[in-house]
């Protein structure tokens, strides 16, 4: 199935996901977590889209909902034009070969009791289209394309290092030749010297297979290296979105500004760190009226507490959810 260029690989619209917490008190309503509060974006074929934010901002929930591992409270996810939550079970299963996932933990994401060949073939075994011999062929091919040997098929995952295991995980995601790969923190569990190998591999695979990435990361530098477009999330919302270079060079949301300032940069020498953002990410257990970032925002004004800023277009594919986007300092 090859979608026409006009159909985005992934289209997310007004996605919401609210969890009900376990009841703590008998006579009080159980609490709620507002993990996603209306997230919308599209990814065009062959592009890479990055999602950055701190823990609890909803980026992992977003990844899992896009993968149809969780059901949203409201909103739609379309992959190659198909609404995931409108499909019956079999149709969804058949569609899954077009979108695959790479996970964070290279030790936890491979079943220790299965040989590498079986791990990598897993997405193929769900549909009956591929015969056993074909399957071995495909697994060998994909192992070679991630820089491993076909003979590695008969080994167990524990015989590989963290970086190699992440290559195996990428091979598994790639084996069905999917249009979309969702990668949730794919390098954050790896050592720095191994990270680069995996990041380069991801870029090479995009060049050779034209795969589209949705990359979730807390590491701004990783997102900048891999992605063409980026969305910054805060408390279940996208607060800023745009082309990576433009957005990082000139952020239009105070939160993005603060994130960029907080990243320590090697080689700049002592005490060049920007002023730290005060406070901590509030729990998302209540939906306030104003801007969710207002309590930590260095630029907050009275209006921010009363009126929630919509994500508005600043031109040139750059969107920001700040009333005072134009006033954000250039750093």
């Amino acid at each position, binding site marked *: 199935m090859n979608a026409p260029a006009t159909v985005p690989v992934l289209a997310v619209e007004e996605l919401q996901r609210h969890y009900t917490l376990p009841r703590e008190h008998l006579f009080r309503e159980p609490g709620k977590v507002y993990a996603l509060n209306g997230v919308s974006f599209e990814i065009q074929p062959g592009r890479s889209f990055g999602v950055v934010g701190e823990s609890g901002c909803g980026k992992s929930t977003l990844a899992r909902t896009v993968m149809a591992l969780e059901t949203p409270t409201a909103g739609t996810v379309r992959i190659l034009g198909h609404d995931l939550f409108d499909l019956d079970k079999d149709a969804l299963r058949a569609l899954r070969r077009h979108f695959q996932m790479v996970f964070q933990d290279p030790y936890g994401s491979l079943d220790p009791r299965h040989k590498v060949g079986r791990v990598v073939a897993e997405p193929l075994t769900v549909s009956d289209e591929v015969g056993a011999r074909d399957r071995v062929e495909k697994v060998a091919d994909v192992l070679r394309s991630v820089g491993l040997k076909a003979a590695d098929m008969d080994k167990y995952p524990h015989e590989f290092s963290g970086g190699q295991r992440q290559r195996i995980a990428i091979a598994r995601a790639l084996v069905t030749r999917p249009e979309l790969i969702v990668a949730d923190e794919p390098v954050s569990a790896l050592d720095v010297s191994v990270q680069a190998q995996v990041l380069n591999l991801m870029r090479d695979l995009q060049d050779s297979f034209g795969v589209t990435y949705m990359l979730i990361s807390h590491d701004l530098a990783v997102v900048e290296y891999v992605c063409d477009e980026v969305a910054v999330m805060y408390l279940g919302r996208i607060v800023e979105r745009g082309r990576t270079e433009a957005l990082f060079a000139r952020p239009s949301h105070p939160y993005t500004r603060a994130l960029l300032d907080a990243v320590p940069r*090697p080689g700049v020498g002592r005490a060049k760190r920007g002023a730290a953002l005060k406070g901590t990410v509030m729990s998302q257990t209540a939906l306030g009226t104003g801007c969710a970032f207002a309590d930590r925002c260095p630029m907050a004004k009275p209006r921010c507490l009363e009126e929630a800023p919509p994500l508005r277009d600043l031109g040139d594919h750059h969107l920001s959810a700040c009333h005072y986007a134009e006033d954000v300092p250039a750093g």
Partner: protein
Amino acid sequence: MSLLRVENLEVTLQTSVGPARAVRDVSFQLERGQSLGIVGESGCGKSMTALALMGLLPEGATTAGRVMLGEDDLLTMPENELCGVRGNRLAMIFQEPMTSLNPLHTIGAQVMEPLLLHRGLHKSEARDEAYRLLDQVGIPNAKSRLDNYPHQLSGGQRQRVMIALALSCDPDILIADEPTTALDVTIQSQILDLIEQLVSRLGMSLILISHDLGVISESVDRVMVMYGGTVVESGPTQSLFHALAHPYTRGLFASMPRLGGKRERLTTIPGTVPDLADLPTGCTFAGRCPLVTEACRAAPPPRLPVADGHEAACIHLDLATAARPSELFS
């Protein structure tokens, strides 16, 4: 005389696959008020070095060399005397704020413990002091927090409690082992700021351990880069980052994606970090180094001067520094 002098420290761990030489021939000095950063990837021996200083190595570990705190060798000091040093002259903060506090004790009780132990305060004095400490590390409503349990605090706040705990007896040296690795980047900068402020205000020395070159380069006076249990390069932060010399350090630096950098292809170091139970006899980096020769594999390389106070343990320094990292590792 230096506040802390570590000479030829060796740590050997007992693992299921045999003895592992986690730290080999590590020497350094720390002056009063100075800050030292130890940077390296997982398994490089940076945490074991810190635990060896504290005398808190895992069961079955053996040590050699000397760790001189003033006149005292901590490695040979009897356990009961060491208890008087820990938390008092030498304090430590750990990586995991979620698990590093006792879940069944109140915050107050845990901050008060070293005060009662080392400073001989009465309960009520210790409580007042604990309140002052929590306030000092920026915990809002410190008074009511004294009676909270750890699970009622966020990760950043727990790390602040850990800092309050570590500073309670005005230690000479604060060891912070990956204090911000488990935290978000905005909280990380808050915590690093706090540590830096308090260290300079109280005139302590700091040993900061991190895998993050950025954190290290922004926070300390001197840097020690470890790999495979040994120090491969060390020097004053400015001059070290200005002229990285060891092939490993150069490769590591070049393999990090950097904000605002051009999106040119990252340099990669082939292979993976060595297994401590099965280290090569010569240079630990020999297996991954593009410049490796027979001499590298034969014996551990000597530490050679690069600049004033800046040393690197490599016999091919001239070759390593001549090429750009991307050429070196192509």
